[in-house]
């Protein structure tokens, strides 16, 4: 029996990874289009409109353009690091999706510590930014990388603490188990029990994915384009893809942990999962097109003086109630 179970698992993983790759690419294309449309409508302009009906093929055209562009390495850049960075930024994406329960049975790999796996590999993103900034031999990139590292490291902590509060309550890091413990109706979701944790998580998620108003590593009006200033073609494309994939990841985790995953009041299934993820993504777009960017020291202050104490307090209260109640 054992000799059979291994191939089955393997096939599951291979199929899963292929599906994830398709999912990530498709999502990025849809998301970029959506974001540009949302931005357009907020700013009272049509957004992409010319390629395909209502511009739906615009991002495909852009992707093709990116693939076709020449890859340029600036003089004096460290070739190895320079090309390693985008790949390193992109590859962990697959690992994030491995333990993700897209639906009742749609999980590539049931890992008891799924949440931990995701959080652990999220750290790789920082490394990619750091290497990209260092390897580019550009002072702006370097500044962007320094910002990126400080920001990611700082915001990872409250993000973790916020998730930990839920883990305390449920006593499991298995994402499927966490979903199982939540009901189908909105008031049975974890967000009702842990509203503060959700808020903290969401803010940190925006910061972790370097989205405005926390997009300091890129901050194009200050650092030209931050850590990816020197990247062209698919070098930039991979960073871009990774950014959007990361957004899906953080929203998927939020959906799983706080919003009941694929469960819904009726017809529970993957569509609920997707719907919730996209709703959260929309929520992530909105501030980007509304707020100015915060300053770097303010960003860190906000983290250490507000998010961190709040997350800690939340965690302590949760622990206390769990113990007493």
């Amino acid at each position, binding site marked *: 029996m054992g000799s059979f179970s291994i191939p089955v698992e393997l096939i599951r993983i291979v199929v899963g990874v292929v599906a994830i790759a398709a999912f990530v690419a498709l999502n990025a294309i849809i998301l970029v289009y959506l974001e540009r449309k*949302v931005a*357009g*409508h*907020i700013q*009272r302009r*049509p957004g992409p409109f010319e390629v395909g009906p209502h511009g739906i093929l615009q991002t495909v055209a852009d992707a093709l353009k990116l693939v076709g562009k020449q890859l340029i390495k600036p003089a004096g850049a460290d070739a190895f690091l320079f090309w390693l960075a985008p790949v390193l930024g992109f590859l962990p994406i697959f690992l994030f999706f491995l333990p993700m329960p897209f639906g009742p049975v749609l999980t590539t790999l049931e890992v008891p510590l799924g949440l931990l796996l995701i959080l652990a590999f999220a750290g790789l993103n920082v490394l990619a930014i750091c290497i990209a900034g260092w390897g580019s031999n550009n002072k702006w990139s370097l500044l962007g990388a320094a910002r990126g590292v400080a920001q990611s490291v700082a915001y990872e902590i409250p993000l973790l603490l916020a998730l930990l509060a839920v883990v305390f309550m449920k006593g499991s890091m298995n994402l499927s188990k966490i979903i199982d413990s939540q009901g189908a109706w909105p008031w049975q979701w974890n967000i009702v029990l842990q509203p503060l944790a959700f808020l903290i998580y969401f803010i940190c998620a925006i910061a972790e994915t370097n989205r405005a108003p926390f997009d300091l590593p890129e901050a194009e009006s200050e650092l030209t384009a931050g850590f990816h200033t020197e990247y062209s073609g698919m070098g930039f494309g991979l960073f871009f893809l990774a950014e959007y994939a990361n957004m899906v990841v953080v929203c998927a985790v939020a959906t799983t942990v706080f919003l009941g995953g694929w469960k819904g009041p009726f017809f529970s299934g993957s569509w609920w999962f997707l719907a919730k993820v996209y709703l959260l993504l929309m929520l992530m777009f*909105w501030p980007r*097109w*509304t*707020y100015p960017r915060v300053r770097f020291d303010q960003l860190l202050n906000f983290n250490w003086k507000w998010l961190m104490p709040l997350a800690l307090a939340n965690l302590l209260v949760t622990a206390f109630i769990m113990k007493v109640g």
Partner: protein
Amino acid sequence: MDLGELDARKGFFKETLAGLWSLVVGLKVTGKYFFRPQITVHYPRRTVDNIPSFRGPIELISREEDPAKPKCGACSMCVSACPSGCFTVTKKRPPAPTPEEIAEQKEKEARGEKVKKKAAPKEPERFLYDYSLCSLCGTCVEACPSGALRFSASPYRAAFDRKELVFDLLADLAERAREDRNPPGTGKTTE
């Protein structure tokens, strides 16, 4: 008027709440505009409706009696008025005398009378205008004593080569006359 200080400190919690509320207000504004209709004009399919008041490249105004003939008297005032030297205007030469006239002239000369040469017609032979140099300032339109120049209403003229932007205004005028879209003396003027 002294604007004074921005609203004074209200205490820690009030200020925090006010700050958070301001973020919500911002989202409300953009959220509201999200559902408002767009204001972009989709260019090739639709164009803006105030093009006539925009200054297009200079064109010649035709005479009332003949839509193919410009009002221009070839005085070259516009040439010297233009700050960028856009115009090249040459006068028509006097018509070549016929053999009879030559004979008559010779006769007169023989009689010792003064010979009067034929006056050149007050019309331009050639009227070139370099749109690539023009700053659409209107100095020429104002300078022209015969009121023969005006801005056209076609701002979309473009070319791949700089040389194509040197327009022959006489040919232009003739073409407009042929196509019968040459209102004499009317149309767009700035004065």
